[in-house]
């Protein structure tokens, strides 16, 4: 049964504030972070909750993001529930520890206000930071709204701490576009969140009664087995994700799926994008549909693990998939998202034309006209029967 309406509190919250409110309700033991735009508000708000006695969390304002993720691993090793937040260069500085967090199987929740990487310095949104940690072993969930950021942050702990998973989870929101944009957010009563999450039950924590050593040397003898197990764990995520979402849906009536499909059933051309671009894409699809064009949208929420089956099914027998992505993999065949899609479709019966449009780097606006431009190009490419591997849109050339 969903939680009664009068128990739900509704507030206008930015993406950052929505995450801070979610974290407040998740009964964190430790939060360690370093300030970086546009994530800062998450920790500032959380510190206010701590100051007001609303949470019992040890908040450590450490001296760098490298230290933040390290402190999280240390805390998580004792069985604590742990979170941190960062973006861009801060995330990049954590890189070494990201791999440790995942390989040591620490269920840390890492909220990220996705932002471009230096140089030159840029504080605005793209997905270079998230794509940079693509292979670290973190589960990656990208959100489209403040509500989704709130919901996903709560669910993230349950997924991360599941004994079949035990992996860290990144929850991404678009820097400024969502992190600083106020939207209506429905919040659960804290006791409902507490019941939903329960208390973390660590499998193998550091404990003086039963001393163990974590993370020592494993060379040619056992290193590979660690990775094998880690791989098996991340492949379990879709199953657990669905289970957790179903439970969450019972409370709230809301669920998002690993991908969101919009008018894809009879679509001939499908727009595929992540995060807030999903909203723009859906508006564009509506307008094009009015003109009789058969357009649909897939908004990818889960980038790691990559939901191959769901994507292939949603694409169905469409003629083309246009990918709009906000990151570059310099020198690669295509850019990160398109590479995944191309690989996923390789075994598919119907292999549509795949177009890769790189857009919005460093916060460059991605208005509906950019999608239409891509759409017009795609139609021409379909007619011609060939297309470039990738293109950049909305940039001076």
């Amino acid at each position, binding site marked *: 049964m969903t939680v009664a309406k009068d128990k739900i509190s509704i507030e206008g919250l930015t993406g950052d504030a929505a995450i801070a409110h979610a974290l407040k309700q998740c009964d964190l033991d430790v939060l360690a972070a370093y300030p970086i735009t546009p994530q800062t508000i998450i920790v*500032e708000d959380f510190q206010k909750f701590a100051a007001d006695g609303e949470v019992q969390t040890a908040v450590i304002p450490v001296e760098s993001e490298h230290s933040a993720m390290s402190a999280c691993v240390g805390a998580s090793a004792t069985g604590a529930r742990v979170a941190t937040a960062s973006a861009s260069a801060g995330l990049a500085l954590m890189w070494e520890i990201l791999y440790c967090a995942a390989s040591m199987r620490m269920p840390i929740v890492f909220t990220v206000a996705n932002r471009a990487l*230096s*140089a030159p310095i840029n504080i605005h949104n793209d997905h270079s930071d998230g794509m940079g940690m693509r292979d670290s072993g973190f589960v990656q969930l990208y959100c489209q709204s403040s509500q989704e950021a709130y919901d996903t942050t709560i669910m993230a702990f349950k997924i991360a701490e599941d004994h079949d998973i035990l992996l860290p989870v990144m929850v991404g929101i678009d820097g400024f576009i969502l992190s600083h944009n106020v939207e209506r957010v429905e919040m659960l009563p804290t006791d409902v969140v507490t019941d939903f999450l329960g208390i973390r039950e660590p499998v193998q924590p550091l404990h003086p009664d039963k001393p163990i050593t974590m993370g020592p040397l494993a060379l040619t003898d056992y290193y590979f087995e660690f990775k094998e197990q880690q791989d098996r764990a991340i492949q379990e995520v879709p199953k657990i994700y669905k289970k957790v979402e179903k439970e969450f849906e019972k409370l709230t009536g809301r669920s998002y799926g690993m991908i969101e499909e919009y008018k894809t059933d009879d679509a001939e051309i499908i727009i595929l994008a992540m995060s807030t671009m999903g909203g723009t894409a859906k508006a564009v699809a509506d307008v094009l549909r009015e003109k009789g064009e058969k357009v649909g949208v897939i908004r990818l929420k889960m980038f790691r693990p990559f939901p191959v089956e769901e994507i292939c099914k949603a694409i169905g027998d469409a003629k083309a998939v246009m990918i709009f992505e906000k990151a570059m993999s310099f020198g690669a065949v295509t850019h990160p998202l398109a590479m995944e899609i191309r690989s996923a479709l390789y075994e598919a019966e119907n292999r549509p034309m795949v177009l890769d449009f790189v857009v919005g780097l460093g916060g460059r606006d991605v208005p509906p006209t950019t999608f239409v431009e891509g759409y017009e190009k795609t139609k021409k490419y379909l007619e011609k029967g060939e297309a470039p591997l990738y293109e950049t849109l909305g940039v001076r050339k």
Partner: protein
Amino acid sequence: MTESQIHFARQFLREEALPSPFCPGCGNGIVTNSFLKAVNDLGHSDLRKFAFVSGIGCGAWIPSPHFKADTLHTTHGRAVAFATGLKAANPELEVVVISGDGDLAAIGGNHLIHAARRNMDLTVICANNWIYGMTGGQVGPTTFTGDRTTTSPYGNPERPFDLARLVAASGANFVARWTTAHPIPAARAIRTALERRGFSFIEMLSQCPTAYGRRTKSGDAVDMIKWMKSLPVRKKDEPLGHRVPTKDLLDLGVFADRDEPSFLQSMEKMKEQI
């Protein structure tokens, strides 16, 4: 305008980059002025002999893009490491790092003490405003105990670094601490720092009315300058001792003044022996 009416600093500044992005009342303008006065006093008419490196934060915007000079604007915390490479590759250049306390002493603290230990031939100027200004006023490693900031709303439980003592103890050849209320002694110290071989460090206490002033209720720029003006000046040769900085116990003056072999000199000496 006659030439004498044009402020001496303008010859070193990129006019097109002005006005600076600093908030009204920010101390960074005075830090800029003191530095350029030292350069002017040394007889330079341009910055051709210099290269500047900065990291991330308000203080990092002092040289970049405002100085008409080669500037390397880098990542948060790493300015000293970038500068070390720059100096090693082109020892002819006077390599200067200008950045803030968050950049140099928090996330980049390790580089700072190691460059001092190495006695690397650099001049580092740290605009210390006791807070992360650019991100909106979070607690940092120079924030005074008890200060209320956005991430220490109940008061900072930690102790701040004494940067001048830290760098002096780490092995720098020249260390001084002045404030934006002491622009002339500061310029004099910067001049000595630029002339001295090895590692020199100038800590410039600098008011940040927007983040520090507002968050910690320390008043406006004028209030903070008045407070800094009242800080005690060390006597020459007074033992350094150990103390945790507080708002009244923050002594100014020179903390290290020696002429030990610099990194480049030690390298030369080693090469001769090979």
